């Protein structure tokens, strides 16, 4: 519409149009744009058996994030209230909120949320999309490192490294991996809302860990693995060779032998339990400021 025609029309018609439509176009839905923050603050965790995990590093690939109007996030959140479609690495040791991006969408009451951990399941491909944040973590969603102090007198500190890939299963293809539980979230998003903050507690993910599986006092037999540990002594069941791992400042890991650190990854039961805890949103609190 030309400027001339538009000006003439606006002068004549807009007041009448506003009179006719004002109050009728008024609705509870307004565009919004909020600051999205993420923070941690947990530096250690105590396991059920008393083992203390002291974190030297706790990095999480956080994002994308969606706020939903329905009480059940997931399939019913095909139209989200607001979204942030990127991902960032969150230092979970830092309690200070970190601005990760802008949550854009529409006002309304959000009763649930959902997010990914840097790895996004797409409807269009079988291979999930690894975002930059996850690539910073070596293609992983979560990286936890530190030392584990076993509740045994005189037991050495055991370095550990947890590296997990957290993504939706094929059955949930196209849905973000973390979906809030019903009733866990209830917030009004409106143009005056300034920010939304997600606080992660990494301790909640590991409290269920049982590191006992990683410590073994066995000898070779017909049913044992290739390498067994008798305390800190590694024995190769095929060659029969033994090695004192402690003498080298290492630990003895079942089936692996002497290792610099305890590695928990996607292949272990412990790793899967940590991933499940993350998926269930354990320790995650999302609040509106």
């Amino acid at each position: 519409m030309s400027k001339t025609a538009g000006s003439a029309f606006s002068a004549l018609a807009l007041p009448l149009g506003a009179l006719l439509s004002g109050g009728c176009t008024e609705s509870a839905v307004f565009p919004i744009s909020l600051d999205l923050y993420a923070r941690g603050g947990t530096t250690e965790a105590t396991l059920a058996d008393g083992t203390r995990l002291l974190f030297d590093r706790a990095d999480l690939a956080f994002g994308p994030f969606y706020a939903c109007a329905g009480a059940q996030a997931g399939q019913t959140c095909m139209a989200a209230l607001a979204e942030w479609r990127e991902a960032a690495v969150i230092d979970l040791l830092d309690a200070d909120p970190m601005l990760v991006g802008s949550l854009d969408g529409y006002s309304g009451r959000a009763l649930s949320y959902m997010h990914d951990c840097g790895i996004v399941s797409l409807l269009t491909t079988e291979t999930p999309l690894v975002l930059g944040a996850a690539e910073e973590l070596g293609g992983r969603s979560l990286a936890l490192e530190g030392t584990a102090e076993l509740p045994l007198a005189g037991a050495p500190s055991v370095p550990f490294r947890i590296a997990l890939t957290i993504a939706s299963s094929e059955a949930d293809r196209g849905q973000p991996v973390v979906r809030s539980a019903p009733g866990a979230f209830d917030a009004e998003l409106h143009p005056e809302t300034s920010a939304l903050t997600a606080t992660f507690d990494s301790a909640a993910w590991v409290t269920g860990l049982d590191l006992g599986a990683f410590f073994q006092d066995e000898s070779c037999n017909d049913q044992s693995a290739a390498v067994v540990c008798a305390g800190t002594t590694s024995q190769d069941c095929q060659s029969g060779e033994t090695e004192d791992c402690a003498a080298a400042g290492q630990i003895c890991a079942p089936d692996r032998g002497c290792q610099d650190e305890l590695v928990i990854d996607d292949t272990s039961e412990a790793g899967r339990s940590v991933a499940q805890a993350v998926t269930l949103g354990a320790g995650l609190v999302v609040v509106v400021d």
Partner: protein
Amino acid sequence: MRRWPPVLLVPLCAAGPIPALAAPEVGADPPVASPPADIPPAEDPPAPSPAPGPPALDPPAARDEDDAPGPPPAEPSPRAVTSPPRLLTGARPVLPPGATDAVVELVVVVGVDGRIEEATVSAGSDPELGEAALAAARTWSFEPARRNGEAVRARVRLAVEFDPPLLEGPEAAAAGGESAKAGARPVAAVHDHTGPHEGDAHLEVTVHGTRAPRAEVRGPSDYFLHHEVLAAAPRLEGADVLRSVPGLVSVRTEGLAVAHSFSLRGFDAEHGQDVAINVGGLPINLPSHIHGQGYADLGFLIAESVDHLVVKEGIADPRQGDFSVAGSIDVGLGVDEARRGLFIESAFGSFDTFRQKVLWAPREAHRESFGAVQLTSTGGFGENRSGQAASAIVQHRFGHGPLTYRALALAHAADAASAGMVRKDDVEGGVVCFTCAYDLDTARAQGASAARLMGGFFADYEGPEHASGTLGLWGGIDDFRALSNTTGFIEVSEQLPGVSGRGDLFEQTNQTGSLGMLGRYRTQALEVSPWLHGTVEAGVDARLDLVGQSQSLIDASVHNQVWDARARADLRLMQLGTFLDLDWQLGTALTLRGGVRGVAQSYLIDDQLGNLPDPSRPQGDSLPGYRRTATGLALLPRTSLEVRMAPALSLLASYGRGYRSAQAAGLDEGESAPLSLVDSADVGVRLRLGKKVDAKLTGHATFVGDEILFDPADQELESLGPSTRIGATLHAQAMPWDWLVGALSVTAVRATLEGPPAPTAEEPFPPFVPGQAVPGVPALTVRLDLSARRTLGTPFGHPLELELGTGLTVASERPLGYSEATPEVAWLDALLGFEYRSVKLALSGYNLFGGTMAAREAAFVSSWDPSAVPSRVPERHVAAAVPPTVLLSLGLTL
């Protein structure tokens, strides 16, 4: 009501020996002819009196304005009659709509029994007037000519002057004016086609060219749009004539092969769900169409074949049927005398557009007789918008006397690509241009193809004293297929577990076979008392539709593989309507019309995908399919009132209840009364100053029980609950001078949703809330049609005509979901034409304000990058409107 024929016969001053029959004064005995003149004897020897029955009437002779006057009459026979025939009784001729006052000369042979044995038109203003004159002449009886006291056959020439009948006695006095004086010369006829004439409460003129008058324009928001107004602005397509309808906005949103999208009077009628459209008496809306309830594709329409529009906004006429929610539009087909002949036009223009038209309307034939063909081809603007279309319309009116017939056939085929809708943030981000299509197979496969064949045969009866009837049969076949992807890659297969992301390209198919009938009869004028008289009309209409339809998701990159089925059904739809209409005059100033319409609907739905088990669960113990039936009945009152305050000023009011049939696929077993009801009330005032000005100011209120809206994401109609509309319309047509015609309309409406669907688990974030404006509807619509035609000069003795025409539509912003709204828009079309002898050269411009105007906007979720994080927040999407377009046309009239 029988009256003496009004001023029919005037003395022929220069006819030589042809006897002069003086005009009978109203209320006086028919005078004896002036001194008898010699009359040429009948060419045939006197024959026995013909057998009882209507005499054969020759069809009106072709009139050629260029013919030289005929030879002088022969010398009188020595055996001259001593007294010519004397007119005794008979019906007055009715001036057909669109005709101005005129004189038609008849040559009749009056038999010895005083009845007309032969009648032909020797000269007249147009063939339709001749028909009207002959029809009236058939009812005349004469005192036969006499020779020496013995009755003899005689041929006489009569001049028939069309006039409105005069009032007598108290009625004349009440009407006042010149016409009230007994013996005064009658006022010349000025027909306005919209109801009773000034001064005559009984004469009502139909607008379909039939000679049985009926008040087609009865409600405050009813309009008769003349051909002059419809032809004022250039029309890129035939359907663009509807842009002259007050308050209507019409745009192409999905290419040449998909129907226009309409909004009218606060209703987003989509492709026709809220506007009943009839063309030449053929109902165009298709019930339960997969692409939209009441789907009405007017792509077949050829602008030059449209004679007039009868627009009924609101519901005041018992004849209005299904889909008359905002109102109804009756398109009258015909070619007036000035345009008859062989017309050939070729047009070339922007975007490789080519259009070829041929229209043949034989000059000697009836106004409604013509044939027209149109071929269109365009490369389309932007990307993925090429298309071709062909249409043909043939109509013929034949027969004479009280029973005439009309046959009509139309055919249409179109195939066009479509760019669909693009995300506004993608346009702003440079991902895709405003007129482009996404560079993906699933986006570039969008398009549609359509084909339609319809025909009808109608018999029209015109009896004495305005009695009339119509009987009609019609049938049609429609085939439709559309491919549309509006959401990109967000769909998941419901039939195949784990299959998703293959592109949301929906394929819709719809085949409809229809058969229908209609009949109506209107009594002659009934007089209860001198101050109370009127007519009663009853009618019935029925239709049977057999529909086969499907909706599937297909993968355009793999030979259109089907990866999900969303609908597959066969429908049998039966609708029976009947109406009773009373049209009564109380005194001279009050007309009360009203009646009731009854409707019965029956549905049989064979849903082949119903009861389909969840594929992720173990196989159940049943087979897919859900066959069900539903019926509906309704009785719908309609009434209107007209109070004539003065000959030029009337107050009008109306109320009516209308309905829209349900989308069959959404009905459950045994569901009753599946009709969406609407109540509409209108009040208004009308001012008519002859043919110079016809203006109306109306207010209206409409309450809809169930608003439906097309969801582009789901590709289906969704219910939005009840809605209310309150508005006003100003409409004026004017022809202040013969060379200038214009029409202006301003429509303001406030449309609100009263109870849109509340959030549910499946739809927790609905786009609408109570009190919100109805989406897609502009609050203010302005339309201007203006045309001027002047003679620039007469080079080589022939006039060189200049024609200027313009059409301007302005619409205020339209609300979308999620608090979005479109900007205000304006379309300007203009024409500059020169006509010299039989050649016409014209330059037409369309949408001259142009720019990046959107034909369609909506807010919904989509994801168009298959390798990126999907968006889940509703985003605004746009489909570009046609940019400024220029066509150069060359026409030849033979």
